[in-house]
């Protein structure tokens, strides 16, 4: 009487089923996001406010010699993108957190889907959301007069850098949401992590202008390297070390995703 027999389906069927479940999960994330209008609009606009008010306001105070350019808005553009990625990675884990707390995640995991599909669909979805945010930020930056040294191909690479960082950080926060004991811990830890991650990096201040110990900390921060890469593309120009940054960020993302998928193989944390 079942649709599926007990036998293992053929490889082609399995691929088709995998695509079907990913599409269904993405549809669910999409519908839930677009039906929260206010949340959606604010999510898209908030980073641009940063760029306008922080860039134009604080920019007037900044000594151009310290930041190494007279285009402070261009200088903080990578930082604004970085802070957007951090916010996106945290809010990207929240739907999973609610699914866990309401019991829906249990239902999902009792279905004949690949356990990795929940993680993968969430990562894909968050990369697209961040992509839209970054596109909007870049558009505002261009309107504000930022001239990108590497032109349009450079903008695409800036987006790639943002995508890699999104994958890495979202994977980490998804693992925290899945494995942690509950939403209190999740919001405490993510709230605690967000600011140091942003401020102990070169997002708004160059490493050379920091006290030595702080620069040392910032050098351990993956966001610093994402910023370096984007800053090179926006203010500097094409340079061989961009390859190093991109390879490093890709490795970092791969490590985070592997760790998260191992976490997803285990039992979810929280109430038994």
């Amino acid at each position, binding site marked *: *009487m079942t*649709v599926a027999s*007990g036998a293992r389906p053929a490889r082609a069927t399995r691929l088709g089923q995998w695509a079907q479940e990913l599409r*269904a999960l993405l549809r669910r994330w999409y519908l839930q996001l677009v039906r929260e209008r206010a949340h959606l609009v604010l999510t898209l606009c908030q980073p641009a406010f940063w760029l306008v008010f922080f860039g134009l306001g604080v920019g007037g105070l900044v000594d151009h010699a310290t930041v190494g350019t007279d285009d402070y808005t261009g200088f903080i553009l990578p930082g604004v993108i970085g802070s957007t990625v951090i916010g996106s990675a945290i809010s990207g884990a929240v739907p999973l957190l609610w699914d866990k707390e309401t019991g*829906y995640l249990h239902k*999902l*995991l009792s279905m*004949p889907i690949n356990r990795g599909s929940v993680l993968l669909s969430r990562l894909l979805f968050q990369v697209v959301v961040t992509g839209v945010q970054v596109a909007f930020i870049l558009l505002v930056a261009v309107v504000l007069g930022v001239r990108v040294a590497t032109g349009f191909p450079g903008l695409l690479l800036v987006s790639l850098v943002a995508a890699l960082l999104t994958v890495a950080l979202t994977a980490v926060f998804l693992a925290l949401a899945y494995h942690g004991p509950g939403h209190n811990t999740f919001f405490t830890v993510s709230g605690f992590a967000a600011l140091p991650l942003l401020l102990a990096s070169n997002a708004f201040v160059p490493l050379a202008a920091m006290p030595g110990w702080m620069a040392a900390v910032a050098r351990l921060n993956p966001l610093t390297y994402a910023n370096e890469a984007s800053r090179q593309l926006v203010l500097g120009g094409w340079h061989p070390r961009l390859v190093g940054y991109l390879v490093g960020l890709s490795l970092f993302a791969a490590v985070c995703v592997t760790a998260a998928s191992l976490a997803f193989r285990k039992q979810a944390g929280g109430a038994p």
Partner: protein
Amino acid sequence: MTGEAITTTGLGRVFGDRHAVRDLDLRVPTGQVMGLLGPNGAGKTTTIRMLTTLLAPTSGSARVAGLDVRRYPARARRHIGYVPQEKGVRHLLTGRESAEIEADLHHIPRRERDRRVTEVLDLLGLLPDADRLVSEYSGGLQRRLDLACGLLHRPDVLILDEPTLGLDVPSRRQVWDHVRQLRDGGGTVLLATNYLDEADALCDRVTILDRGREVVTGTPAELKRKVGADVVVVRTRQPDRLGRALAGLPWVRQVKVVDADVSVFVADAPSALPAVMAEARRHDVAVLRATYERPTLDDVFVHFTGHVAAGAQ
């Protein structure tokens, strides 16, 4: 499929040093509604998590639809319709969208999907509300949608965890009616509940769990018989005459007379009541009032576990 839809052998799960479930031998024959009854913390949900492959057993084994859940978790999941205890989810999806997404997650082929979704929504009477957001649904509608989604892939076994928790009386009755419909259609259901009246109303057989162990298993009627006999109580002006007339009849186990009340202990009170009335008429005894009492599953629970069920009403 015939035989047993669910079989567990010495199934156990330990959390730290706490035995959530111990040495459980559960048998759910195909086509029956089996109740897992017990207070909160008795091990019902842990048992269900192991059967639905969400939790690995620490001892023993479990088979669902003939498949060992530890060796073939992915295949076993295809045979299970699981309706978990959800804590007031307010999805921003319509009922139809929710069902479509779950159908896709069960890999129901796209060309069958929409027909199947409409079928289960119709079965649960949800078509009029299918295109409203689930966040606007009442608790009862929400539970019916959960049930509908559990049926999408025509599972061999439907596992319901507290299906009427927190529902008002009419919604509860509605859910019961749907579970009965499923049973009448030949479906196998494992139902965890801490409502004794629910187990009594729906289950062919009941296993009572307490502190992770099976306490007793049987049909609700058997269990109640073990606890005590049915009693027909007749109030009359001639209690002694009626008592003498009934004592010694083959279907009467015992007669007690207290003041104007004659208590007649019998095997089955509803069928004995007319016979008691006939005896009264034959001996010219005027009956003022006649009632009967039967043990409830509450009595069964208290009898076998020595304490009152948390969910007893």
